[in-house]
């Protein structure tokens, strides 16, 4: 059973059409939730880290929020250059004392001009 579930799998928006991506998690002992952007043929690019429920982070048209069971990535007035796959990862305590992030499968966002 997936510990990190992202929805929707794919999302098509018109330029300027705001929307939200969801990341729900079932892990206990959350030690951080991360959002990444990944462009085709490239490695994930770090966007945000959220640590506690109620926390919010913003960067340009993106805003990430966190509750006890899920996180949302809100995209306000998106532009075609926001098209990418957005990955969510949660970090929990793992054996050996290290914190290993578990990634979701991502949401593929396409913004049409």
């Amino acid at each position, binding site marked *: 059973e997936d510990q990190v579930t992202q929805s929707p799998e794919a999302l098509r928006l018109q330029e300027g059409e705001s929307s939200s991506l969801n990341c729900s998690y079932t892990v206990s002992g959350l030690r951080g939730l991360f959002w990444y952007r990944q462009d085709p*043929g490239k*490695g994930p690019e770090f966007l945000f880290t959220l640590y506690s429920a109620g926390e919010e982070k913003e960067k340009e048209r993106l805003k990430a929020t966190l509750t006890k069971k899920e996180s949302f990535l809100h995209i306000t007035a998106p532009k075609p250059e926001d098209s990418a796959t957005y990955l969510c990862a949660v970090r929990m305590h793992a054996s050996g004392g290290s914190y290993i992030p*578990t990634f979701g499968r991502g949401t593929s966002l396409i913004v049409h001009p």
Partner: protein
Amino acid sequence: SAVISQKPSRDICQRGTSLTIQCQVDSQVTMMFWYRQQPGQSLTLIATANQGSEATYESGFVIDKFPISRPNLTFSTLTVSNMSPEDSSIYLCSVRTAPNEQFFGPGTRLTVL
């Protein structure tokens, strides 16, 4: 932040051969990781590359198949041994820096024929 480079960026290999992927970071980092990203799948951690000691492998990954070297705090290699078509994937190097942000390299796209 950290700037990470990987070599090669892509390769096409024959079944039964081995490929070594290099990862170079522009600063000294304690924690380096190797991930695999198969089409339509989430990032899967292969192993944590420890400087001065053997790598720590995740369930389902073994040292004979994925030997890792970590000779210093800025460099690591991952070898994919005795390759089969199932090893076709993107392999990503990642580092964790203070304050607990994780960055990824551009990836190595491997195709095994």
